[in-house]
C-alpha cells in the first residue's frame, strides 16, 4: 500500500517543470531566425539581472516580443485544454471525452466569434471589450456541454456512445455555423476561418490578456482541483460515488463550469486545438496513475509541454511560413492515441 503523499506529488511536478523548461528553451531557440544557446543564456541572465538595455535589440525583439509571449500563450492554452479534458473524462466516465471531440471547443469558437461581431455595436469601455471574447467563448462552451450532456443521456444515465455521437454531431454543426459566420460577416474579425477550426497561436495580445489568461487558468484549474478526490470516486459511477460520500450534483456543477471556462479561455486566444485534452491525460495516466490529485497537475504541465512543442514544430517545419498548431497536434495525437488504445487492450 503506497498512498499518495505531498512529497511524491511535488517530485512529479518538479520533473515535469524541468521538462517544460527544456522544451521552452528549445522553443525559444528554434524558429525562422536561429538563436544560439549562448546568446539565449546570456540574454536570460541579463534579463534576470535587470540589465535589459544590454540585450541586443534584434534578439530581444525576437525572444521577448515574439517567441516569449507565444510560448506563454502555448503554456496556458495547453494546460487549460488538458485539465478540461481530464475533468470531462472523469465526469462523463468516458475515456474519449475531450473539449474538441465533444464539440465544446467549436461552441466556444462560435461564442467568441459572436462576441467579436457584437463588440463594435456595443459601446463598452475598451477593457470590457477585451473581456467580451473570452466571456462569449465561455458562454458558448457552457451551452455546448449542456446540450451534449442532454443529448448523451438515455433513461437518466449517461450513455458513452450516444454522448460521443452527440458531441461529434454538435461539433460538426457548430463548425458549419463558424463557416457561415465567417463567410457572411467580416467586420471586427481579422482572424481567419482556419484559426477557429484548427487553432493557431500566432496572434499577439496586449500584456493584460496574458495576466487574464494566467489568473483565469489558476482560478478554473484550482476550482477543479478542489474536487480531485471526488473525481477519483466518480470513476466508479455517480451512484457509487454518492454512496461513498460525494455530493455528485455540486461536483458536476463546479467541474462543468470550470472546465467550460478553461476551454473558453483557451479557445478565445487560440481557436480550437484538437486532441490535446484527449492525449495528454492518457499519457499522464499511464505514467503517474489515475489519481486526480496527481493527474490534474501533471496533465496541466503535460499539456503545456505538448502545446509548446507542437507549436515549435508548427513554426519550424515549413519555415518561414507556418502550419496550424491544431494540425500538428492532430497528426501527432491520433496515431499516439491508437497506439495507447492497442497497448491497453493487449
Amino acid at each position: 500500500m503506497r498512498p499518495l503523499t505531498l512529497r511524491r506529488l511535488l517530485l512529479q511536478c518538479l520533473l515535469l517543470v524541468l521538462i517544460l523548461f527544456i522544451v521552452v528553451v528549445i522553443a525559444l531557440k528554434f524558429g525562422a531566425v536561429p538563436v544560439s544557446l549562448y546568446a539565449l543564456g546570456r540574454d536570460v541572465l541579463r534579463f534576470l539581472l535587470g540589465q535589459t538595455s544590454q540585450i541586443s535589440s534584434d534578439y530581444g525583439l525576437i525572444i521577448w516580443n515574439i517567441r516569449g509571449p507565444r510560448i506563454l500563450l502555448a503554456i496556458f492554452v495547453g494546460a487549460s485544454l488538458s485539465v478540461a479534458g481530464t475533468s470531462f473524462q472523469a465526469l462523463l466516465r468516458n475515456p474519449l471525452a475531450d473539449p474538441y471531440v465533444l464539440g465544446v471547443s467549436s461552441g466556444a469558437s462560435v461564442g467568441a466569434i459572436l462576441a467579436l461581431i457584437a463588440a463594435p455595436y456595443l459601446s463598452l469601455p475598451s477593457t470590457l471589450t477585451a473581456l467580451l471574447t473570452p466571456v462569449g467563448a465561455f458562454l458558448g462552451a457552457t451551452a455546448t456541454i449542456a446540450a451534449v450532456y442532454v443529448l448523451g443521456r438515455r433513461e437518466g444515465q449517461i450513455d458513452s456512445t450516444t454522448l460521443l455521437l452527440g458531441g461529434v454531431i454538435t461539433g460538426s454543426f457548430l463548425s458549419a455555423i463558424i463557416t457561415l459566420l465567417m463567410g457572411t460577416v467580416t467586420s471586427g474579425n481579422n482572424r481567419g476561418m482556419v484559426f477557429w477550426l484548427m487553432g493557431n497561436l500566432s496572434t499577439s495580445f496586449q500584456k493584460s490578456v496574458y495576466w487574464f489568461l494566467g489568473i483565469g487558468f489558476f482560478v478554473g484549474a484550482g476550482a477543479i482541483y478542489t474536487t480531485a478526490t471526488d473525481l477519483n470516486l466518480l470513476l466508479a459511477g455517480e451512484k457509487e460515488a454518492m454512496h461513498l460520500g460525494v455530493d455528485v450534483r455540486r461536483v458536476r456543477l463546479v467541474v462543468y463550469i470550470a472546465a467550460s471556462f478553461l476551454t473558453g479561455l483557451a479557445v478565445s486566444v487560440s481557436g480550437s486545438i484538437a486532441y490535446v485534452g484527449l492525449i495528454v491525460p492518457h499519457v499522464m495516466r499511464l505514467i503517474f496513475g489515475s489519481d486526480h490529485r496527481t493527474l490534474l497537475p501533471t496533465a496541466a504541465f503535460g499539456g503545456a509541454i505538448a502545446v509548446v512543442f507542437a507549436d515549435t514544430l508548427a513554426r519550424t517545419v515549413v519555415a518561414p511560413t507556418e502550419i496550424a498548431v491544431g494540425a500538428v497536434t492532430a497528426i501527432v495525437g491520433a496515431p499516439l492515441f491508437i497506439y495507447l488504445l492497442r497497448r491497453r487492450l493487449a
Partner: protein
Amino acid sequence: MSSSSAFARNTSEVSRPSAEPRLSVEQVSYAYSANPAQAPLFTLEATSFQAKPGEIVAILGPNASGKSTLLKLIAGALAPMSGRILLNGFVTHSLTPRTRAQRIAVVQQESTLLFPARAWEFVLQGRHAHGRSLRFESEDDVLIAKNALAQVGAAELSDRWMDQISGGEKQRVILARALAQQPLLLLLDEPTLHLDIAAQVGLLDSLRRLAAANRYTVVVVTHELNLAAEYADQVVLMQRGRCLRVGPPSSIYQRELLEQVFQTPLSVELGASGRPRVTVLSGTQP
C-alpha cells in the same frame, strides 16, 4: 490495535445495550413513475421493520418485488413518499451524502472502474467521507484499509489490479471498501449474484462474523432462500411491492407462504443447523 477495535467507531457504540433498534423503517412507501401525470409504474406499499446492532436482515422476494427499491430507500438514495427511515434517530435521506457515507456503506452488485486501480487504492476510497474533501490519506486511513482487507481475508490482494482478480476476490475487496467506511449500517444488493457456492458461503460467513465483531447492522437483498435462512436473524418477505411478513426465518419459511410468493412447488424442512431448508420440487432453482 486489534482488528475488531479498529472498526468500532467508539466504545460507547459497542457497549450500548442492543435493545433499542439502530435501524427503524417506519411505514415507508414509494411510487415510481416515468411521468408525474401518469399512474405510477411501480409502488412500494407501507413497509416497517426494525433491526438492532449486530443483526443480519435479509430482504427476500422474487423479481420486481421491491427489494432493491426498499434498499435504496434505506440507503437514502431515494426519498420515501410517506413514512420515514431512522438510523440511530436520524432520517437517512435528509443527511448530506458525506454524513450518510460515514454511517451507511452500500455494496452493489458490480463495480466497474473507468481506469484501472489497485485493490488498496479502491479500499482507501472508503475513507473519503471521513476526511476533508481534498487531502492525502493519513496513517490511520492506511491502517483501517489494511485491517479491512485482512478482515475479509483479502490482504494478499492489496497490490493486485482490480480488473485482474476473480469475481469472488473482487467482491471481497468491494466489501473491504465498505468496512473501511466504518459504517453503522451495511447494505448489500445481491452480493452473491455472480459467485460460486463456495464463495457465496465464504462471503456470508464473513458477513456474520463481521456483524458480530463490529456490531454492524446488515441488510442484504437476495434471491437465495437457503442462504437467507442460514444466515439471517430476520427476514423481510416481499412480493409485488408489498411487504408480506417480517420475522425470524423459522416463522417465514412455511411451505404455503413461500409457494405462493415464489410461484413454484417446494418443500421446507429443518436443516442440521436447526434452520429451515427449502427444496424446489419442480427442479428449478428458487
